């Protein structure tokens, strides 16, 4: 007991937690990537990857070895340091954001008081990997792609920020664990439904906000229909044109880690996190570890649900044109979420009398 509260023990526990979370994410990413391709194929009445392993389950691992064993090609005119740095930054940023995500009561690496702000700060840095990669390639297509994506990510960052402000106003805290704890109990306590019976009318605001958050998350992670940075029909593959082998793999993993991260964030902020939507009193008799595993499974199920939605959107929505994308972000989402902030804060002050 003493050892685990000493500095050395604390360091060991934290390092172990980080390792566990990272490896867990990487392994789930392998299967989520396969699920993404399978869903995509299913919508188009194809079979998808089905050769490597049973049902193609090992496809991602085969792809991994294929990427790692290839040669890393650095273009002659490239800025070598920045060229290699860009995928590393994307990869690292995609993973350090997970530090504040609570997976179950108490299961969190760092329970920051400003957890949401930390997430917001990290996700606003994601643009650097793309813009550095595009510039360092010293080639026109990657540069155009990276400029586009920089403008796109900065634009949608704004509306995501304002939507998160709504959740902060409802919860009255920036700590992710407290935000989830406030959504315990019945399903109407979830933030998407106004966060409690007392503020049920806010469902008119909060439910559309969760949908706008979902769409903004698509744009923020460069997913179709907003995958303009890589728009293969016009920019070949955008900022990734000159990348091969492991650096490309790092970009790819970083992108998917960000997508899954947005799914988890949406579950935590709007859909009750690890709370299944009904009182969990029956868990009181269970051993704490089993109860936590139950909560983890609930959060996992919600995340998978969000991921399936994102995968389906990729399959059947055509790509936006760039001016349409900007119009959607600045002229529709930004004013809507701004009005929502005003309404929610007015509700908090005048109806609930919160100071």
């Amino acid at each position, binding site marked *: 007991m003493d050892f685990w509260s000493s*500095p050395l023990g604390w360091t060991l526990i934290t390092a172990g937690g980080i390792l566990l979370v990272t490896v867990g994410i990487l392994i789930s990413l392998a299967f989520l990537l396969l699920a993404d391709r399978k869903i995509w194929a299913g919508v188009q009445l194809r079979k998808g990857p089905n050769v490597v392993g049973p049902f193609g389950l090992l496809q991602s691992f085969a792809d991994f070895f294929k990427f790692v064993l290839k040669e890393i090609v650095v273009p002659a005119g490239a*800025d070598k340091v*920045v060229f290699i740095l860009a995928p590393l930054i994307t990869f690292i940023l995609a993973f350090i954001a997970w530090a504040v995500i609570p997976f179950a009561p108490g299961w969190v690496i760092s329970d*920051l*008081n*400003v957890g949401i*702000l*930390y997430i*917001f*700060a990290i996700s*606003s*840095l994601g*643009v*650097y990997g793309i*813009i*550095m990669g595009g*510039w360092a390639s010293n080639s026109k297509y990657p*540069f155009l792609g990276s*400029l586009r994506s*920089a403008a796109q990510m*900065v634009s949608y*960052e704004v509306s995501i920020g304002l939507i998160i402000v709504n959740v902060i106003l409802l919860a009255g805290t*920036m700590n992710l664990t407290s935000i989830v704890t406030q959504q315990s109990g019945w399903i109407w306590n979830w933030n998407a439904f106004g966060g409690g019976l007392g503020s049920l009318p806010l469902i008119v605001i909060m439910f559309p906000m969760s949908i706008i958050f979902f769409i903004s998350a698509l744009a923020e992670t460069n997913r179709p229909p907003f995958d303009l940075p890589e728009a293969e029909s016009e920019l070949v593959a955008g900022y990734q044109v000159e990348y091969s082998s492991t650096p490309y793999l790092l970009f790819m993993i970083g992108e998917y880690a960000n997508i899954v991260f947005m799914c988890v964030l949406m579950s935590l902020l709007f859909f009750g996190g690890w709370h299944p939507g009904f009182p969990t009193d029956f868990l009181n008799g269970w051993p704490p570890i089993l109860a936590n595993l139950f909560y983890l499974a609930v959060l996992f199920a919600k995340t998978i649900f969000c991921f399936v939605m994102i995968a389906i959107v990729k399959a059947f929505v055509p790509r936006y044109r760039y*001016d*349409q994308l900007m*119009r959607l972000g600045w002229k529709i989402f930004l004013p809507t979420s701004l009005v929502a902030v005003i309404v929610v804060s007015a509700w908090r002050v005048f109806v609930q009398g919160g100071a």
Partner: protein
Amino acid sequence: MIEAIAFYLLAITAVFAGGAVVLSRSPVHSVLWLILAFFASAGLFVLLGAEFLAMLLVVVYVGAVAVLFLFVVMMLDVDFVKLREGFTRYLPLAAIVAAILLAEMIIVSLAVASGGAAAGGQIVPATADASNVETIGRVLYTDYVYIFQAAGIVLLIAMIGAIVLTLRHKPHVRRQNPGDQINRDRRTAVEIKSAETGRGVSPEELL
């Protein structure tokens, strides 16, 4: 002990990155070093217990301002040789500014070390139960509300000015109107004509 190590690591990083901003050859590298300097200062804020300010520094400066810097610098066609020529010419001026700043810092730290006015007297009493955000919010929206609002108005005017300066309505651009597109319906958009079998349709008949 760990705090001291963290402080010295961050401080050395900040100073080194600051120097590299001035000394690096490519402007894009300068901006990247500047971002590292911002990051190190955010870390110093965290060490001071001001985690809210640290996060804001990262969100505002690294996430938005530096992106725009990078944007502009990447698209500029900068002549590196010319840039280096200016370096030696402005060095004396820069040295004077640096000396003045250094003198000010030394005076301030001497004042604090000898128990000056700002040493112990915190302007906002840090309470144990209120978080960083709450404390700043309480002060900002009560004692300093007029200054806060004035800052907001200044920013709003700057934003409107930027829009006015850059907004140009080009006369021959056909803009998309999504409302019109959605409201178009089959009855007005398409006209169905029946053509006789084996005869075809001539253009005049379609009008």
